[in-house]
């Protein structure tokens, strides 16, 4: 894992001191709310419906057990005993007090954590594949480059006042698990014919009120040019991105309005001017950062007879092993998805006790590594297959063993109107009701791979546009109203879902989704054809007819 050097440590401590002083001046009246708001947002502190909300960064979703225990401690001491893991691989605390946030940030700094760049019109925390460094299909560990981008982007003076926020995602495998094509910049690690490492680069993807799939601007960008090329993209965006209209300020609009070829030419021109200069990545610096992410010292494969026996004898374990394990590159190892989607639970929520349990498991079985996935689950990336039954047993005792990774109840949902000041409808209760509706193991298994994603407003934090079934909550005549989109996806073949027809009330929406699911079960060519494949084969007509009748 990455460890802070002297510079990082001083930087984070200085920021804590600075923010403590800003809070003091706000409370004493030396700063007005207007002056203070951008300062608190730069430190991840929002004011939501019921209270302040603190968003803590988990860079590229990686942390260790000490950090997880600290999050649990903060949940207990400063909040109501829980936290919410988000689609940005971060964690949010829903009830901190303003006057206590300096103390929280200082407790976080002690374990090399912070809330910097979790808000504001800057380059946000870089997100990455949650199986980074572990997955069998990986070309190289994307976190090395995510960390290099973090170091380059933190407080970058030229890019601290961008037209709008800017999100970069990176994946190290051909199977994209980081949704790179719906980010402002998406990077997919690749190897060229000479076997050198580089990146396929996408620009201008994004969700929100104008969803767009990123456009490919480079098939293969050499590793050494990563920063120079990224800087060139940011410069073009900073210069030409719209500042007159907040809703048209993201780079996706610039790509759309300028046209891909012209924008690409602008980027290449800027790149030519700075390439080969100070931003060229030296190989020894890449190697130095890579050393931080060196794989743990793997053990020899354990006695896997327990695993095989548990499949036969341990209730629920066969399903868990089938759904929640991801193939590891190391023989005898696997990655375990810890679902934060218990049937009827709030997606992404974890109690302080559960955080401690995961920390203990990571320490005991998982080489002290934990990941947060953008699908709002946790991951133990490196565990011996032989240890999985023991891990499962502990998870089960703490409500963390739901065998639903990638299934219909593994729902992404934003906080929605239960917490969020921007929301126009609730998301979490819709997710909970859907989870209960489809929650039996038999029903979930019958339906197979299906991603439902729910947002409580047009800003699309719940990624509804790229849900196989997407649900967008809006307010209509004072009531919550839910629009359904079908056929979205956020993998290497990303697509934006299409609105299927008029929306549904809060009461109706769960039935409507069940109608969609039942329609899929009726029309699929066989069990091996999943929802998305079936939708792509037949289009929206049968779903439309099932929902609205044949008109």
């Amino acid at each position: 894992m990455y460890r802070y050097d002297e510079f990082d440590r001083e930087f984070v401590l200085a920021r804590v001191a600075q923010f403590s002083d800003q809070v003091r001046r706000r409370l004493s009246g030396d700063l007005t709310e207007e002056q203070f708001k951008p300062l608190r947002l730069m430190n991840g502190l929002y004011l939501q419906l019921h209270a302040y909300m603190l968003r803590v960064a988990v860079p590229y979703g990686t942390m260790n057990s000490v950090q997880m225990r600290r999050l649990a401690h903060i949940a207990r001491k400063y909040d109501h005993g829980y936290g919410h893991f988000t689609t940005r691989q971060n964690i949010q605390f829903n009830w901190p007090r303003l006057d206590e946030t300096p103390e929280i940030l200082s407790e976080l700094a002690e374990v090399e954590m912070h809330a910097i760049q979790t808000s504001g019109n800057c380059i946000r925390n870089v997100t990455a594949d949650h199986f980074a460094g572990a997955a069998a299909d990986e070309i190289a560990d994307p976190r090395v480059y995510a960390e290099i981008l973090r170091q380059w982007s933190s407080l970058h003076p030229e890019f601290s006042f961008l037209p709008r926020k800017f999100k970069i995602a990176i994946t190290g495998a051909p199977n994209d698990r980081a949704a790179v094509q719906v980010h402002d910049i998406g990077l997919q690690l690749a190897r060229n014919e000479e076997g050198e490492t580089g990146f396929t680069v996408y620009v201008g993807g994004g969700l929100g009120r104008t969803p767009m799939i990123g456009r490919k601007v480079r098939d293969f960008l050499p590793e050494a040019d990563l920063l120079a090329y990224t800087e060139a993209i940011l410069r073009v965006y900073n210069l030409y991105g719209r500042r007159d209209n907040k809703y048209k300020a993201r780079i996706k609009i610039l790509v759309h309005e300028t046209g891909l070829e012209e924008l690409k030419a602008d980027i290449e021109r800027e790149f030519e001017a700075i390439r080969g200069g100070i931003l060229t990545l030296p190989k020894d610096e890449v190697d130095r950062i890579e050393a931080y992410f060196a794989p743990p010292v793997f053990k020899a494969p354990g006695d896997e007879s327990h695993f095989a026996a548990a499949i036969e004898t341990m209730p629920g374990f066969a399903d868990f092993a089938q759904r929640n394990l991801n193939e590891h590159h190391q023989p005898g190892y696997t990655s375990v998805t810890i679902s934060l989607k218990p049937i009827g639970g709030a997606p992404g929520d974890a109690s302080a006790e559960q955080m401690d349990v995961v920390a203990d498991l990571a320490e005991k079985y998982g080489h002290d590594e934990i990941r947060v996935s953008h699908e709002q689950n946790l991951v133990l990336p490196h565990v011996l297959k032989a240890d999985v039954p023991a891990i499962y047993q502990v998870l089960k005792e703490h409500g963390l063993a739901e065998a639903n990774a990638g299934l219909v109840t593994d729902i992404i949902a934003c906080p929605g109107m239960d917490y969020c000041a921007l929301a126009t409808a609730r998301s979490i209760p819709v997710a909970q009701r859907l989870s209960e509706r489809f929650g039996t193991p038999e029903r979930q298994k019958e339906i197979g791979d299906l991603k439902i994603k729910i947002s409580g407003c047009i800003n699309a934090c719940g990624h509804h546009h790229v849900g196989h079934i997407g649900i967008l909550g809006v307010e209509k005549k004072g009531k919550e109203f839910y629009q359904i989109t079908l056929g979205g996806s956020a993998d290497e073949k990303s697509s934006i879902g299409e609105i299927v027809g008029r929306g549904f009330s809060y009461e109706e929406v769960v039935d409507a989704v069940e109608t969609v699911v039942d329609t899929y079960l009726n029309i699929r060519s066989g069990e091996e054809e999943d929802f998305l494949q079936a939708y792509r084969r037949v289009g929206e007509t049968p779903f439309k007819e099932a929902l609205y009748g044949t008109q």
Partner: protein
Amino acid sequence: MMKVVTANRLFDGEVVWLGAGGRWVEDLGEAHVLETKEAEAEALEEGAASADRQEVVDVYSIDVTVEEGVLIPVRFREQIRAAGPTMRLDLGKQARRRVNAA
């Protein structure tokens, strides 16, 4: 018309409403109901002055109504603000009310 003035308390973000005598109250039931445009304008001014004293932030007025003798906000969003998350009845004002009632 029936309105009340609301805000969030600066130091902890708690939802509050303007009560009698310009005091901020944590329970909507104790809020001062405004029945004229003039009364609303006056209350908003009072709220703004309080914001200037670093007591609250985000002062605005909301529509309220009375149902079965209980004051409730008209907009659903404001109903949630007045109670707490709808799926966590153990949190927010609704939880405190339950504790008080027990």
